[in-house]
């Protein structure tokens, strides 16, 4: 037998002690498995370093096998830890980052959402961004590139457009039926438009009642616009609010035609208190032909409810 292959003789006590320590280390790491994987501490590294130290005294395969067993376990734990790490990195917590930024700059109280910044806040906001810029700028070494417009596109031969000769240039305002700038308002504020229109029409109605006290106005004459069916329908819609809210009363006169009557102040309270029994509903149906017939029958030439614009 080759003397080099023979296992060296050594201190049996020492070997037993090494094996004992390895086993202790393995049990310890297994025990603390959950903590090692889930907390960001150095315990796995420390365990590895301890095993490293133990390995210095290892000369035989028996102890080396224990070391290998420990290494496999440590490698598994390391893999699990790194898997944890990856999932944290892919999730960017915006709110937490914002908090970090606020603490970094040293500004507090900007977290409350303001729909509109008032003047006092604007200084703090500017200070926030300026401080941040000073720090952040040192990390971005990229210089601004050259921005240009000429040369971005080919020049195309201009299409001979029908142009008016520039003779006498009178200061003629272009009769632009289109608005110059698209106003965003009109699309979103249907509710406001309704309220505004109802108020406006109520005003018109009340003016009429003031000018003709103790009389009522024919419903059709009031709501019908002889030039526009759509407008007539809108007027009916708005007047229905006026009636619902008790500012005017609709009833049938001696000819059984609907009329609008003013409601006096004390009467208004009464109507409101009359409760569910007092509530009546009516449905008006009006077709294009009906509208035309009404215009012809009542000989309505001008709308009572004038357009705002």
């Amino acid at each position: 037998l080759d003397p080099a292959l023979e296992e060296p003789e050594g201190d049996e006590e020492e070997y037993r002690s090494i094996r004992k320590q390895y086993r202790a280390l393995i049990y310890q790491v297994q025990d603390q498995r959950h903590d090692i994987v889930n907390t960001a501490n150095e315990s796995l590294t420390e365990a590895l370093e301890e095993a490293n130290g133990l390995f210095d005294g290892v000369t035989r395969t028996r102890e080396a096998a224990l070391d290998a067993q420990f290494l496999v376990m440590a490698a598994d734990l390391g893999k699990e830890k790194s898997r944890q790490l990856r999932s944290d990195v892919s999730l960017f917590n915006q709110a937490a980052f914002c908090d970090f930024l606020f603490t970094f700059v040293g500004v507090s109280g900007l977290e409350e959402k303001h729909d509109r910044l008032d003047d006092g806040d604007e200084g703090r906001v500017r200070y926030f961004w300026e401080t941040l810029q000073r720090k952040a700028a040192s990390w971005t070494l990229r210089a601004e590139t050259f921005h240009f417009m000429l040369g971005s596109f080919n020049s195309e031969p201009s299409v001979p457009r029908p142009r008016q000769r520039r003779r006498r240039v009178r200061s003629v305002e272009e009769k632009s039926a289109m608005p110059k700038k698209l106003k965003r308002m009109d699309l979103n504020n249907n509710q406001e438009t309704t309220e505004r229109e109802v108020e406006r029409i109520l005003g018109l109605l009340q003016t009429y009642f003031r000018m003709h006290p103790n009389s009522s106005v024919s419903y059709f004459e009031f709501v019908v616009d002889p030039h526009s069916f759509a407008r007539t329908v809108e007027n009916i819609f708005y007047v229905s609010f006026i009636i619902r809210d008790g500012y005017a009363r609709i009833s049938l006169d001696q000819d059984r035609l609907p009329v609008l009557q003013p409601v006096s102040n004390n009467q208004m309270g009464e109507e409101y208190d009359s409760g569910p029994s007092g509530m009546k509903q009516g449905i008006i149906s009006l077709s294009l032909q009906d509208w035309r017939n009404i215009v012809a029958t009542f000989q309505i030439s001008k709308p009572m409810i004038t357009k705002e614009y």
Partner: protein
Amino acid sequence: VPSSMQCGTRRMGVMTDVHRRFLQLLMTHGVLEEQAVKRLQKHCYKVHDCNATVEKLEDFINNINSVLESLCIEVKKGVTEDDGRPIYALVNLATTSVSKMASDFAENELDLFRKALELIIDSESGFASSTNILNLVDQLKGKKMRKKEAEQVLQKFVQNKWLIEKEGEFTLHSRAILEMEQYIRATYPDSVKMCNICHSLLIQGQSCETCGIRMHLPCVAKYFRSSSEPRCPHCNDCWPHEIPEIFNPEKEREAGTSSSNKKSLRSRQH
């Protein structure tokens, strides 16, 4: 820029870090008013070479331009059309295959700009309404653009100082005029308007109602400076418009602390 680049017969100047820093800062802003440019130059000297005497701005810029010549880029000096402020802008001079690729904007965005440009040139006032521009969005080349997107692209042009917006109407920023004057004169020779006084491109200005000649607002101010009865230089009819007030650097300096407020107001117009 390596100093070994060939550039033809003109003797090329030498750029130091002072010039390079200045150039990079001007590149970042795109266009700057003269006061700001002077401050910038002083700042660059302070950072890199605080003991040197500050070179005269004109020579400083000519030096830089001589180096940039081989790249077909130039620092051009101009004047704003509305109030006659002197400005400096870094502009591109040539259309090449590289310049077509290096644009900030997509094909449909550039076509939108071109359409807006045409409307502005054709208009009487030098302004094109946003509704008129947006109505052309369906005819754009490239990827289909929604009207809402087009509004944002127009705002991008305003932010990058290619267009100016006033009450829903758009006109060219002085930066765009400086860069694109030659292009505009070459591409739209029939519709382009010229100033009777300085003979350069006119977008905004005043015109004579009798003979139709036009003048820039600062040109009007300069021409009629000391006349009590302004008359058209071409047909001698009474000049019908109010003579505008234009930028006076002396007055700005006198105003002292309040000038910074005025400046921020004006720069918003630009």
